[in-house]
């Protein structure tokens, strides 16, 4: 079993351009990841638009730990362990809602929205040292909660780098999400997909910037979409889906010449946009997008609008559990459940002040890209399942993450850049972060390349 003594062993499992299969298959390593990565890193838990008013709350998990995110009586954001201080029962059982207080259903211990104990029945008979004002009788607050432009992150480590230090240049991807709203605000809307697979959590982020897989993995939906007649009735949603599937059929030459990949410290990365279909994404000739540009210019001015729309990023991945994409207002949150079991929740964002049709398009896009019944995502889920099945064998001991390894180079703002989007630089970058969290070694690609 892995424990504190085997840090040296952990360090050996990540080597230049390859990683050991146990990183995806060993339950003991998974448990350590929950403790050292999810228990320490800044983890995305939700968005402030989900708790607009005092008393609004929603429940989620950090890894497997239930938490409740709530706007307390003073308007402050609180993130509490969803656990009664009395006998440990989960207190809040609704996914979301509005309340004045939290009350445990077992013996009626009742809490303020900031977690402090408010009332208990049968106040007599407790030991002398029983103190209803102490942390021991509260729903515990998570040590560090910070929100960046509405995106709420939590760190379970009492100290360490601030959220701003951890995100560093990746704040610009969040800025890109929010700045696109004519009224300068975005909100989560349109429900949630919760999709699951029998594979490791790391596979999900590794796939989101993988420009080399669509040509193969998504062949069935690319072929079906390419063969689809365009004169068949569509209310617009199917058209968006089919255009997206066709884009996935871009040849390798396109990915290698037109699309970039950038990485930043702490495991973060983003993929450049890859769409050349003028009717699909931010495109000057699309009538809905023209209306949107007009709304943005009216609020933000022409100069600023131009700057905002010049940012063309596809998926931005914030390690270890968040991925989002501004152009269609999509966001994914990864929840590790077991070494070979992962649950992903995906959301849409609505841009305040944008034409309603923009949001309808985001919904159509979500259905094809993140939908549990999507023609595209289902083949990704199949791949994750098959990787887990394959890695249950000891045959392939080391897994290759070396594509583009010789050609990684520095980028502005402390980042690094792959030669093109088929480089696996962003996977190597995530394993640098993994090593840092797991061993405290803070290795970097550059340092390891120097050694190699």
């Amino acid at each position, binding site marked *: 079993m892995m424990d504190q003594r085997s840090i040296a062993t952990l360090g050996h499992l990540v080597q230049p351009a390859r990683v050991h299969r146990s990183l995806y298959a060993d339950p003991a390593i998974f448990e350590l990841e929950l403790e050292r990565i999810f228990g320490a890193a800044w983890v995305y838990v939700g968005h402030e638009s989900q708790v607009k008013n005092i008393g609004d709350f929603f429940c989620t998990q950090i890894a497997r730990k239930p938490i409740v995110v709530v706007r307390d009586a003073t308007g402050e954001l609180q993130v509490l362990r969803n656990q009664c201080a009395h006998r440990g029962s989960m207190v809040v059982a609704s996914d979301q809602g509005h309340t004045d207080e939290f009350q445990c259903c077992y013996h009626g211990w009742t809490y303020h929205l900031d977690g402090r104990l408010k009332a208990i029945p049968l106040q007599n008979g407790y030991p002398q040292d029983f103190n209803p004002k102490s942390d021991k009788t509260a729903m515990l607050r998570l040590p560090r909660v910070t929100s960046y432009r509405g995106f709420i992150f939590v760190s379970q480590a009492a100290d360490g780098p601030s959220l701003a230090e951890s995100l560093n240049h990746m704040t610009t991807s969040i800025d890109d999400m929010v700045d696109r709203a004519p009224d300068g605000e975005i909100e989560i809307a349109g429900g949630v997909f919760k999709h*699951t697979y029998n594979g490791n959590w790391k596979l999900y982020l590794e796939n989101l910037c993988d420009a080399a897989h669509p040509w193969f993995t998504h062949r069935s939906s690319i072929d079906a979409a390419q063969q689809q007649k365009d004169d068949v*009735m569509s209310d617009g949603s199917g058209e968006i889906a089919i255009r997206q599937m066709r884009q996935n059929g871009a040849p390798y030459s396109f990915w290698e010449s037109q699309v970039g990949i950038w990485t930043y410290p702490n495991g973060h990365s983003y993929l450049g946009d890859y769409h050349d279909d003028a009717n699909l994404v931010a495109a000057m000739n699309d009538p809905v997008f023209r209306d949107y540009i007009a709304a943005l210019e009216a609020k933000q001015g022409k100069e600023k609008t131009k700057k905002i729309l010049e940012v063309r990023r596809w998926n931005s991945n914030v390690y270890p559990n968040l991925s989002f994409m501004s152009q269609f207002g999509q966001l994914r949150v990864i929840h590790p459940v077991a070494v070979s079991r992962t649950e992903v929740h995906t959301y849409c964002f609505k841009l305040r002040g944008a034409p309603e049709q923009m949001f309808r398009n985001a919904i159509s896009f979500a259905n094809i890209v993140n939908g549990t019944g999507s023609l595209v995502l289902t083949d990704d889920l199949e791949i994750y399942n098959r990787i887990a099945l394959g890695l249950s064998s000891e045959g392939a001991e080391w897994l290759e993450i070396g594509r583009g390894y010789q050609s990684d180079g520095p980028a502005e703002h402390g980042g690094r850049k792959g030669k093109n989007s088929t480089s696996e630089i962003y996977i190597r970058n995530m394993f640098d972060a993994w090593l840092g969290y797991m061993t405290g070694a803070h290795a970097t690609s550059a340092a390891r390349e120097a050694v190699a």
Partner: protein
Amino acid sequence: MSADVAHAVIGNDAVRIDREACEAFLLHEARLLDEAKFDDWLALFTLDAQYWVPSQPDQQSPHDTVSLMYDDRRLLETRVRRLASPRIYSQEPRSRTSRIVANVTIEESGPAFVATRSKFMMIEFRRGEQRLFGGTCFHRLVLQDGTLRIRLKRINLVNCDAPLDGLVVPF
């Protein structure tokens, strides 16, 4: 309100579509799906059809909330074409399904259309795992050339908002 009989009018002729006729149609549809005759299943839909599996109980619209599946006719054709692809990896191996359709009622009817409500259960088996789905189906059926066709099929899964592994075979 449900009725046992719906009356449709085609040209000058009144056509009687009773509950039994609707049930026979729904059983035929379920059989085509179980036998993986997806092209034949697609042929049951009108050219302006919609096929909808909401992601939330009581979901009002497919346009302001995400859906497990929401296909206009164009996307439904693409979905069915993909099911026939030899490279649909999420169907390698193929699923086997077994459906039961029951509790069929006519909810509404009018000139040349019938709205039915039915219950379904579907077992899906693939790669050693068996999943059970159940819920309520709403069909809006229309008469075209004397034949029933599906204008809208809505499937309310009991567990539509649960975390789910990928859904590939249509309900």
